[in-house]
């Protein structure tokens, strides 16, 4: 029992943090917003050199062969940089889904190209209306009935759905399913899609933690600098207590996300409950952080030119990705209120054995 990361994992995280601080400043995010595809080939090449796209790709396919615990750290850093796009759709969802479905030829063909940064995968998930990052994907994995279908970009019809968060590139996707496009069916497909959904929700949760961290940091920095009534506004108890309230919710969301990552990595039975808890807690913390950040910044935070809204928009839109509050709350409720549910002290890690 050790609830914490290895030196190696922490080094991986700080390397990413430094890399993104340097290579992915707000100006880059704004350029991605303005771009046609929301994807920056140069940045992706550099991320690929770090192994990011292939983080969850088995080493046999030229990936790093890491698990969802490393993934959570990666995505916290992505959130901290307000970066999304293929770092989520490909590295966090597409690659591991591809690795899981029983289609060896497909894996052989695509996984090395994911790891090299050459291919980007967009994934449709059961129950979700939109597909993220479909506009720039080289491969689409899409659900149809209880099957998974693999499609080339020219075999699908995409309709872009512009959103308030320009980083959220979502599409309505239609395609003709056939036996030629089917790559998994039945229980295999159901299991793979369910795990992919959990990974998507975990990805949103982990990003939300990074987003909330960054919002707190930016807002504290502003509150230390900005003076009114001849003192820094951060010396007012109203400001202090709002920010302290964010910290409380954030610091108790963080371990829920890390635990969910562990549960997905180990394929635990309670995985979905843990993921839903993590998503609810992390996106709620991020939303609260956004609310307080904007209130403390005041009018300056309400402008397009100030960078704050890069993270505000992420905090708001992560909540909408990979299942909303109601869906995740119902998943936890169904588990916790079920007959024979084991919910008391000593049960938290009882399923790990």
């Amino acid at each position, binding site marked *: 029992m050790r609830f914490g990361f290895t030196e190696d994992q922490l080094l991986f995280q700080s390397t990413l943090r430094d890399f993104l601080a340097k290579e992915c400043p707000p100006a880059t995010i704004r350029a991605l917003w303005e771009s046609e595809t929301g994807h920056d080939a140069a940045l992706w090449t550099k991320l690929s050199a770090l192994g990011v796209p292939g983080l969850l790709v088995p080493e046999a396919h030229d990936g790093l062969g890491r698990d969802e615990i490393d993934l959570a750290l990666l995505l916290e850093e992505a959130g901290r940089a307000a970066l999304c796009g293929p770092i989520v759709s490909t590295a966090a969802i597409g690659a591991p889904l591809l690795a899981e479905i029983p289609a060896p030829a497909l894996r052989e063909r695509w996984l090395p190209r994911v790891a090299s940064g050459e291919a980007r995968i967009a994934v449709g998930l059961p129950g979700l*209306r*939109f597909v993220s990052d479909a506009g720039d994907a080289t491969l689409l994995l899409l659900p149809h009935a209880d099957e998974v279908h693999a499609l080339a970009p020219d075999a699908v019809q995409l309709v872009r*759905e512009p959103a308030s968060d320009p980083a959220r590139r979502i599409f309505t996707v239609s395609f003709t399913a056939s036996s030629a496009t089917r790559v998994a069916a039945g229980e295999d497909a159901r299991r793979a899609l369910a795990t992919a959904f959990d990974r998507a929700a975990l990805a949103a949760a982990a990003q939300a933690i990074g987003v909330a961290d960054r919002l707190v940091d930016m807002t504290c920095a502003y509150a230390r600098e900005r003076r*009114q009534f001849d003192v820094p506004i951060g010396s007012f108890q109203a400001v202090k207590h709002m920010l302290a309230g964010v910290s409380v919710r954030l610091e108790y969301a963080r371990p829920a996300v890390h635990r969910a990552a562990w549960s997905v990595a180990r394929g635990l039975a309670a995985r979905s409950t843990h993921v839903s808890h993590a998503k609810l807690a992390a996106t709620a913390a991020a939303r609260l952080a956004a609310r307080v950040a*904007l209130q403390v910044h005041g009018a300056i935070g309400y402008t397009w030119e100030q960078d704050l809204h890069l993270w505000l928009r992420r905090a708001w839109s992560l909540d*909408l990705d990979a299942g909303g509050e109601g869906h995740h709350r119902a998943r936890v409720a169904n588990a916790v209120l079920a007959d024979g549910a084991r919910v008391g002290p000593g049960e938290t890690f009882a399923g790990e054995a």
Partner: protein
Amino acid sequence: MDLSYTDAQQRFRAEARTWLSANVPHAPLPSFDTREGFEAHRAWERKLNAGGWAMVSWPREYGGRGANLLEWLVFEEEYYRAGAPKRVNQNGLFLLGPTIMEYGTPEQRARFLPKIASSDEVWCQGWSEPNAGSDMAAIQATAIRDGDRYVINGQKTWASRGAFAHWTFGMFRTDPASERHRGLTFVLVPLDAKGVTVRPIAQLDGETGFAEIFFDDVSVPVANRLGDEGKGWNVAMATAGFERGLMLRSPARFQHTAARLVGLYRENEATCDPALRDEVVACWMDAEAYALETYRTVSRLLGGGKIGAEASLNKIFWSELDLRMHETALRILGDRADLLAEAPSATGTDDWLDGWLFSLSGPIYAGTNEIQRNVIAERILGLPRS
């Protein structure tokens, strides 16, 4: 206590309803934070004024119809019920207008009020400065007396509608040696004056909702001063009272939103999170409470009462309610909540997203809610100053 309308009030309502139903544009106007929308909204204001409905509570000589505040509430109800456009000149109509009525000379009333009513002159407020936000007494922009003129220098910011407005009103330091709320004077400045530079600022929604205004030796006649020299703080506080208090945010606005929220919930009841039912109902009750409290206040004012620090209660209540209603609407919309209007799947999402972005500014503008809580604590509850 008598909570029924008089026949005269009913007739007034019927008249307003008839006129609005015949005249309100069928299609929504473009946003008034674009040049095109700004002019479309001015055209609507001119039509409204021609019908005598621009500001029903003003005297007829200034373009009103001499209605009392209760009738004004009734008119607002009909206005929102009709789905009529937003008021592009709200700063002129609801803030500056009442201030000129109270502090202006007869010449100033005659000069300014009719053009406010007609929106021939659209106003923005010029109060905030980069270093004077919540701390409005930290104003640094100066208006130095030079004979029968003031020469203005400095910078104002967060002027809503500033990008397209014709005039601004604000406080300037006429005594450069003064500190805090002393030595400030309330001055009206035409934005086409020599030395004025307006820099539009893009908002969260991408539109240029507000502007910075730079003053470089801008000369205005002393006749543009409202109230006495050095007494600008008192004049401004009266204006702020109007803003936070009765006029700027009439209950009808929020009741209209609440009714739309009820409709949205009913449309999406089968698919949305069932927990939202209670939220929708709570929002409706709060909108109703805001109306009840406003009728109570208006009854008190008609009986000779004054509006005071309790305007700070209003500000907090409506701004939190507006935010909560829009958040609830977005939660009902679920994964479609942040679709822009042009998104193919945005049918039925109406303008909830834009409304929500605007509602986020509610706890900030017109004096942050933190400042209002200080006011409530100190001036209503009698707690000691820090």
